[in-house]
């Protein structure tokens, strides 16, 4: 079945390509992918999520979450430092309490076992 689906997909993309070529109307305005906007935010945030995925089992939930939040609050959210610190510590502890203690979700303890 994957083969057939792939064939259909190829046909459709062909049709789509022809359609955009022959359409008299201007095609839908596509926002520029790399524009004057803060697209670096997007890359950094996505990268931080990937890093979190790699680190969570090594550092454990509490440490990796705290680092992630520090990064996001400070560099993406551009908060003041005291907000950054208190925010990330509080959120980490509260989420740990809710998910691990109350909902009994298994979160990794990591190498340091915290």
């Amino acid at each position: 079945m994957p083969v057939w689906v792939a064939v259909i997909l190829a046909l459709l993309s062909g049709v789509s390509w022809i359609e955009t070529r022959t359409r008299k109307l201007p095609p839908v305005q596509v926002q520029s992918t790399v524009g004057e906007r803060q697209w670096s935010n997007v890359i950094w945030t996505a990268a931080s999520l990937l890093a979190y995925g790699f680190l969570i089992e090594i550092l454990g939930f509490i440490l990796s979450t705290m680092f992630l939040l520090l990064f996001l609050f400070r560099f993406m959210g551009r908060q003041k430092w005291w907000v950054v610190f208190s925010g990330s510590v509080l959120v980490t502890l509260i989420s740990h309490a809710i998910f691990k203690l109350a909902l009994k979700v298994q979160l990794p303890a990591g190498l340091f076992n915290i």
Partner: protein
Amino acid sequence: MDLWNSVLLGFSISLEPINLFYCFMGVLMGTLIGVLPGIGPVATISILLPATFKMSPISGIIMLAGIYYGAMYGGSTTSILVNIPGEAASVVTCLDGYQMARKGRAGPALGISAFGSFIAGTFAVVALTLLAPPLAEVALQLGPPEYFSLVILGFTLLAYLAHGSMIKALMMACIGLIMACIGLDFISGFERFTYGIATLEDGIGLVPVAMGVFGVGEVLINLEESIGKREIFKAKISNLLPSLKDWKDSLLPIIRGSVLGFFLGILPGGGAVIASFTSYAVEKRFSKHPEEFGQGAIAGVAGPEAANNAGAGGNFIPLMTLGIPANPVMALMMGALVIHGLQPGPLLLSQNPDIFWGVIVSMYVGNIMLLILNLPLIGIWIRVLRIPYPFLFPLILLFCLIGSYSISNNKFDVLIMALFGVIGYLLRKIRFEAAPMLLAMVLGPMLEDALRQSLIMSGGSFTIFLVRPFSLTFIGLAAILMAFPIIKWILGKKTRLAAELPKEDHT
């Protein structure tokens, strides 16, 4: 068991304190995420799915359902006050709702959308109660060939109703089908597309993909657009109760919206978003003063708000009777049922009447809770809106991360989620809809099973799909739908459904 007893059974289950509590939690969270732009029901349900593992199945499903219809209520608040849709189904509410707010009529706008939602929600649940059992009877007669044709018809409808290009929607569905093939082949046991990666043997989970595309993707889009610029309507909101004239103007739209929304909700790919757009177009056409639309016409708020709530109810029909989810939210609900060892579909009604009726009746209860939550607590929701986005988005991301990790305590799910977050972001940039992909991922195994079983039944002949009456009807309908745009294109008329609807500016 007759209908009356069934409904009583449903009440006895949904009124148990624990279920009442989860229903309340569900609608409360639903309203909250409905109010907050940047996180929708799909992401929330996927985040909370692992948390329901420890609950009884019925409580879990009741809570997840509550999130969905609660979000439909909450979304309108943001649309009206901030001119940003809280979630996709409230896009059209911005048009007239925000105009009403600017004219100092935010109160009646909020009021009518809450009442309209309540009326429509109740209508949808009643219709669901009456329609689901006979439909489930019919569905029991369907064999693999019929299911195959039905799913094909579903995909076609999905593509036909899609906002953007039909071809793009079909392409996304194909990609979803290919993604569904990843993992072990159920019949032969071969590994497909795993490239020797052990995690991929189980296939790609729906939940991390849904969370990535709808949760992370949305956050990334918002991050790119400058952070934290949001104007909240500051004037004091008084007089939530609509006047007699408001009621006169909106009663018919609410009724039309309810019926329309419910039936559109049954269609695959339909659901709340399409329902609200269509209702707006219909009301504009029916109205004696179409020029008022866009200037703060109350009918333009009442109709679509009713329609999106009724649509949310209608969505449950294909899931509960056929076992076919109509949209990503329902796909997740299906996942939740399966995780608890329940098979959604025609047998659910006879094998687990407690689940079936408990969930349906909990929606009556939930609708009443929502009315109570929404009208007096509107002030709290406005305060929620003031939470700055720079503070909000790390929390959304964190919840997505915890949610994806806790599905199977596997860091690969986190990586898959992050990856699909980027994919979701890019898809939005190039105007591809993610919903068909997600649905195809869920329906893929079902489609493949049905196809192979049918071919085994027929000894390898494809004519089996054309000789059975139900199957032929479905295939025929699908063919007509496919041919429609081509015929129109040949006739040179560019009047697709989308062309008549207001342009989507906010997504």
